[in-house]
């Protein structure tokens, strides 16, 4: 057990600097995503900026605060591959939502 703990410690106690760096980056990124709203960007620009900052933040939290960057690939892959199901669900539901709103507008309001 000692060995394991030592190993664990080796992978879990990192220099305090890295945590402070990530922390700072998270604040900056949050501030940027707030600015997206402040400047009232619209359309594609707004959405892509929101997504970029979101994924950067999420990635930093997962990789460094949750130590995923230092975990072995077996665990990382087990955790990330199921997300494909979510991605598929999102894509299909987006298509479904578009279809729903299309039929609603067509048959309830616009006609023709």
């Amino acid at each position, binding site marked *: 057990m000692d060995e394991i703990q030592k190993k664990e410690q080796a992978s879990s106690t990192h220099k305090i600097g890295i945590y402070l760096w990530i922390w700072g980056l998270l604040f900056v990124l949050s501030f940027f995503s707030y600015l997206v709203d402040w400047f009232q960007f619209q359309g594609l620009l707004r959405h892509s900026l929101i997504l970029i900052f*979101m994924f950067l933040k999420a990635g930093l939290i997962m990789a460094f605060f949750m130590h995923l960057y230092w975990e*072995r690939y077996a665990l990382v892959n087990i955790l990330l591959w199921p997300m494909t199901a*979510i991605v598929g669900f999102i894509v299909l539901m987006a298509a479904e939502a578009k279809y729903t709103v299309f039929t609603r507008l067509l048959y309830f309001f616009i006609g023709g």
Partner: protein
Amino acid sequence: MSNNSLNNLPEGFKGMSHDMGSDQTAFKGVQWGKVMMWIFLLSDTFIFSCFLISYMKGRTSTVVDWPNTSEVFSLHVGGVPVPLLLIAIMTFVLITSSGTMALAVKYGYEKNRKMCGWLILATAIGGLTFVGMQIFEWSKLIHEGVRPWENPFGAKQFGSFFFMITGFHGTHVSIGVIFLFIYARKVFRGDFDNGKRGFFTTMKSDYVAIEILGLYWHFVDLVWVFIFAFFYLW
């Protein structure tokens, strides 16, 4: 139980195939509790994803205008409306608490009891502040007439999804806060140093518990990142 079987393991994808092909454990050197938290968080990710996907479907397919979140969630500072101010502060608080939690985990592994305990306590207070601000936000909106079943700003679903998603997230934060306080007490009492047995489970305490709690707390923060992006900003 000393052995060197966990040293010199191959890294990267090679390491992955080695780990998966080996006996005893698939995740080398990862404690049971930590795997449990990870798999639980994976399951929880699916819960939040389903909530957010439903929200996407609901928001896209309603023909009534969606309220402008930037206005709905604005605060008046000196008579001037500042968009999303409260939400920005909440995000700030949650990220702060996430940072203190990360440091607590680090000091926990270094067996720095005092530092670890105080940082957990700071995290708990951050979480409590977050919940407090959420309560403020809810009461403000309720005061303005937003209800789960209707609201004066636009689509009915706005209130429903707002209360449901932030409520579910808030519940997660609250549960986390409770556990943070419990663990802060345990750390100060020295349970993790002397391996005191748990009250319910009768299992020995270990500093890895702090990391497990940390995983949960960071996950709560992670979810907030997505809620912030999709619900407030989009």
